């Protein structure tokens, strides 16, 4: 009898402990998340606490901060300061600029390889992609590309870098081994962002002025599908796709539509637009958090970011940040 009570008690105890652990872990995962937003006109980044969704600090980083990423160990925040012609590296713990990296002129967007060895930087004013050795703090190579290089998408195996050039209207496929262009695919006007699907089978490229998303087969260098957007009451010209985020399950894609002030949720298998969600004004860049529950958007004209609950497909909060919020990075 005693034994039974004991075992029931033990079971309850275990349940309780498990519950406590569960709640702690949930809370921990929310508390631990930090969001970094670059403010193009304010020369700083806003640091946002992921649980309270409030700005906890702004950090001066240099002139015209745009592209923003995290180092692989999440200990450093790396920011293109375009008008300073260099990259600022901020220590994530002290939130102070630790050092600078060379970048070539007017760095705009960048991507880091999986091993955290190289940063590939688009030099908008210089028609170049610059390869920077992150730990060695030096420029390794400059690759000439089209006019106003912008989007940078790295294949999951790290072998191919896709760079878009805004005025040349091309997606350049660059081998990261030889650092030479393998192929060029002509897309619609003013391509902005390039993103590989998780399985590496497709590349999604947004054309801001063309108003379309081109889905490219990176084996054949061919556009297999173009997605267009129609929003009742809005003229075609105001629908300007820029930011692209693809979920890890290859189910849904999130596209920021610029001055249409909306993001589109696109089914990645049928390529149909499932829903438009109203955000702040001139929504450009997007980031999904690590557990895939929230999407953050930068809204350049309303000077805020929208927080979207991915499951409910709803904006749950707008957070005012600096002027012209441009890029967003998230640390879990």
């Amino acid at each position, binding site marked *: 009898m005693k034994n039974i009570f004991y075992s029931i008690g033990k079971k309850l105890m275990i349940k309780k402990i498990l519950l406590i652990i569960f709640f702690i872990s949930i809370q921990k995962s929310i508390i631990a998340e930090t969001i970094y937003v670059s403010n193009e006109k304010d020369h700083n980044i806003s640091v946002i606490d992921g649980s309270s969704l409030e700005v906890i600090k702004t950090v001066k980083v240099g002139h015209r901060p745009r592209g923003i990423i995290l180092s692989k160990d999440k200990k450093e925040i790396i920011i293109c300061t375009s008008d300073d012609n260099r990259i600022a590296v901020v220590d994530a713990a002290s939130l102070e600029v630790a050092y600078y990296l060379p970048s070539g002129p007017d760095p705009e967007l960048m991507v880091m390889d999986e091993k955290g060895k190289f940063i590939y930087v688009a030099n908008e*004013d210089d*028609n170049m992609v610059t390869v920077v050795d992150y730990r060695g703090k030096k420029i390794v190579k400059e690759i000439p590309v089209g006019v*106003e290089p912008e989007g940078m998408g790295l294949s999951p195996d790290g072998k191919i870098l896709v760079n878009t050039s*805004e005025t*040349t209207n091309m997606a350049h496929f660059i081998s990261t081994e030889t650092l030479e262009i393998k*192929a060029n695919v*002509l897309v619609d006007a003013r391509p902005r962002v390039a993103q590989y699907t998780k399985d590496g089978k497709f590349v999604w490229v947004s054309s801001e002025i063309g108003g379309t998303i081109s889905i490219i087969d990176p084996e054949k260098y061919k556009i297999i599908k173009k997605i267009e957007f129609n929003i009742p009451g809005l003229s075609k010209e105001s629908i300007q796709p820029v930011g692209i985020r693809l979920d890890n399950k290859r189910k849904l894609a999130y596209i920021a539509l610029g001055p249409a002030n909306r993001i589109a949720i696109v089914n990645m298998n049928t390529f149909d637009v499932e829903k438009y969600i109203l955000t702040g004004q001139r929504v450009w860049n997007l980031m999904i958090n690590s557990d895939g529950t929230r999407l953050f958007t930068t809204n350049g004209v309303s000077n805020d970011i929208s927080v979207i609950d991915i499951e409910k497909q709803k904006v749950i909060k707008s957070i005012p940040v600096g002027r012209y919020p441009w890029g967003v990075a998230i640390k879990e």
Partner: protein
Amino acid sequence: MKKFFLLFFLFCNLIFPVKSDNVQQIKIVHMNRIIERAPTIYSINPEIKNNGTLGSRMGIKDNNTTGKFTNQKFELIEKNIMPHESAKEIFEEFRKNNYKFFILNISKDDFNKILSSDLISESLLINVSLKDNDLRNEKCNKQVLHTAPSYMMVTDALTQYLKKKNWTKLLLISGTNERDKQFASSIKISAKKFGLKIINEKIWDFSHDFRRTADLEIVKFTQGEKYEVLILADEGNTFGDSGNSFGDYIPYRTWKPTIVVGGEVLKPTSWHFAHEQWGGNQMQSRFLKNSKRLMTNIDYNSWVGVRIFGEAITRSKSLDSQEILTQIMDEKFKVAAYKGKPVSFRKWNGQLRQPVLLVTPRALVSVSPQIGFVHPKTELDTLGIDESDTKCKFN
């Protein structure tokens, strides 16, 4: 297996090969009318050197960056037409040598004469400086495109802004030259279109220098008039030289405190160096680096023109002018031109539809079309001559 290789080979040709020897050569002619500059009121107002040509040069550079990947080489032929030379004769000389693509920064008289040439067919002309409405209406030609906005476009852009501010009672002061008159007649149509009222119209025909007495003359000139905004029809004394005008002497000298628009005071135009939105700053800094001076509206119109030739030729891969024109006029043909909205052509008169900037000499004030002016097809068509009003008939 053979078939496979053959298919593979064909496929490889379809995508752009990185290196190849058979480069397609494209020559674009930029014709530039040289004027004898009239004595300016401002001796500090310097003449802009190579106005337009530098825009075309940058367009060629941009086209060639794309051309590097598509195996196309663009070349600019620059031709200045001296005061005693005939634009038509020079044009015909180029046509006889089979040049097809022209950027024209020439006077109205030059343009009319070229339009009468028998050699115009199979060529494509882009007008980068003339705003004349008749070139988009009765005198339109299917071989001619306009990247310069028309008078109707710029006056619509200005009046939309005034309407938005609810400044609707206007006093119109017009200069006496042909361009001033065209601006004045356009502003009257715009005012009617958007519900503004021209209370009175006065002609500025004084001919002497006002450097000493301007403050007194203009007080009397505007005394007793009941208006909210004073609007100037002041397009400059000489073609291509808007620096030489009377309008700068009006502000701050009126009878009552007055907002002055038009002329160089608040000017509706296609481009200005203070414009930096929508990637504009990239364009400005690229131009400054290449050209060592700030970018003018004529530079911009020329750049757009050369880029349009480039885009159409890159996409059509053809040098046949008819095919290129079909490509340009296609509804899907849109060009990124740093104005926040794609620019494209109106199929009814060959006019580039584009946002129009409202600028002061040193700053950007607003960009039209203003929010709230709607159109069934595109808001851009609230500026200028719409399809239902066109008097253009292409033969």
